[in-house]
């Protein structure tokens, strides 16, 4: 065993010296390989972090959301539907909600405005300043940090939005959400339901959707099915479905992007194959001399294997660490423009990178194994080169 280890240590020494001798070529391969692994790992870590963040942050999302569908599109839902839902056994409470978007033509930002039917039971820890409006109070608003910046309010605490008839609807800012909740509230304006209806020009007997709370969370699916039966012209969205949507979106997108990045990896593997196949005359001479000195073909093969493995391992670890730093400390700066697109309001979310064993194994299988395979066959061909012909040139 000791002889075996000693032999491989010596082969590794020789392989590393050989790598260092051709450092120009090997460093270029190393940088490209690290870059490809970095991109692939960054995307895997980013989607995993977003998925975990969505699963944790949205675990208290409404149990059931009911939307009215007309001709295949979502329309405002009549409040008369509330009674039919309340009659279903197991329903605890039904709350109407009015919400929609306001486009700020000056800055080009989309702001989400949400009118609530009851004053939220929230402590001041979710607000950087102020409070929520009381029940029945008119014209109040609690805004997110992004809205505060976009409307350039400064120390002012009032603003207006245009109604559909272009008259102005004034709001008085009662509170501002704390930056810790930016991932949920950055572009939000929360107000009372009557103010929401007034702003969007909605009939008093209509709401955007209905939120349903159930007594027993285990019965969410059953009650959702009953709502669909009682109100067939509605779309019923449950909490598990919302969480599954995020899982599906992230899995689909990460798979899609991974396929694009795998093309880059494939190009690199082809380049590695090409480089390993095209042996320089010095390399042929080196192998010939080694064989004359008594090396066997498996020894030469082993040296090439150690060379590839050493380079691939360092590139893998470096690329993975760089990807971790990219997600954790630079907030996925390279992918941000894809994720945010033309968004004007860009929440400064703080991603905590999540690295799973599955992702590392996937990364290892997609990068190191193909690289080793791509270099081992040319290595075998180079190891079986005819000694005399190589020496004669």
């Amino acid at each position, binding site marked *: 065993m000791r002889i075996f280890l000693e032999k491989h240590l010596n082969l590794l020494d020789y392989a590393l010296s050989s790598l260092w001798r051709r450092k120009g070529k090997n460093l270029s391969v190393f940088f490209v390989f690290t870059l490809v692994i970095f991109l692939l790992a960054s995307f895997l870590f980013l989607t995993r972090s977003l998925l975990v963040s969505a699963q944790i942050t949205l675990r208290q999302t409404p149990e059931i959301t009911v939307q009215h569908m007309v001709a295949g599109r979502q329309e405002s839902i009549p409040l008369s539907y509330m009674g039919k839902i309340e009659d279903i056994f197991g329903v605890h409470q039904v709350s109407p909600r009015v919400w929609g978007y306001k486009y700020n033509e000056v800055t080009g930002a989309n702001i989400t405005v949400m009118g609530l039917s009851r004053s939220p039971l929230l402590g001041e820890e979710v607000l950087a300043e102020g409070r929520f409006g009381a029940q029945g109070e008119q014209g109040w608003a609690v805004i997110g940090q992004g809205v505060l910046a976009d409307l350039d309010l400064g120390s002012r605490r009032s603003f207006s939005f245009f109604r559909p008839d272009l008259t102005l609807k004034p709001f008085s800012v009662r509170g501002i959400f704390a930056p810790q909740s930016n991932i949920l509230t950055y572009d939000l304006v929360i107000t009372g339901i009557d103010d929401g209806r007034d702003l969007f020009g909605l009939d008093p007997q209509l709401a955007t959707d209905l939120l349903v709370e159930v007594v027993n969370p285990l019965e969410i699916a059953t009650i959702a099915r009953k709502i669909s039966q009682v109100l067939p012209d509605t779309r019923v969205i449950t909490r598990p479905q919302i969480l599954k949507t995020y899982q599906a979106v992230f899995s689909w997108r990460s798979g899609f992007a991974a396929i694009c990045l795998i093309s880059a990896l494939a190009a690199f593997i082809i380049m590695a194959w090409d480089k390993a196949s095209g042996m320089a005359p010095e390399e042929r001479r080196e192998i010939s001399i080694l064989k004359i000195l008594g090396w066997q073909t498996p020894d030469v093969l082993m040296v090439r294997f150690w060379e590839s493995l050493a380079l691939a391992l360092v590139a893998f670890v470096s690329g993975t*660490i760089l990807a971790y730093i990219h997600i954790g400390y630079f907030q996925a700066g390279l992918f941000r423009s894809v994720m*945010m697109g033309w968004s004007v309001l860009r929440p400064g979310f703080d991603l905590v990178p999540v690295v799973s064993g599955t992702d590392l194994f996937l990364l290892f299988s997609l990068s190191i194994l193909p690289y080793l395979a791509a270099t081992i066959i040319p290595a075998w061909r180079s190891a079986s080169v005819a000694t005399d012909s190589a020496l004669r040139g």
Partner: protein
Amino acid sequence: MRPATLFALLLLTLTAVGLLASLHGRQRAVAERAGQAGRDNLTRELGLTDLCLATEARYTRHPAVTDDLVPFMDYPVALEHFPTGLFWAPLP
């Protein structure tokens, strides 16, 4: 020092850097969890359904409650054209 030892040291150093970064990440995750109770209340009381990450289009701001055909709603043959649709659009 023989090259194999140098190589082992390099790998160990890189692994240690990775572990340190991961430990720091773990600490940040713990700190993040401390504020989760507040976010839970917020989500429950306001009835929030989506993360505020991309705000350019309604189907990327609220992917969970949007219509599947929203990207194509503007006119019959309109193509989904927002850049975030690459990342956020509903499943086909």
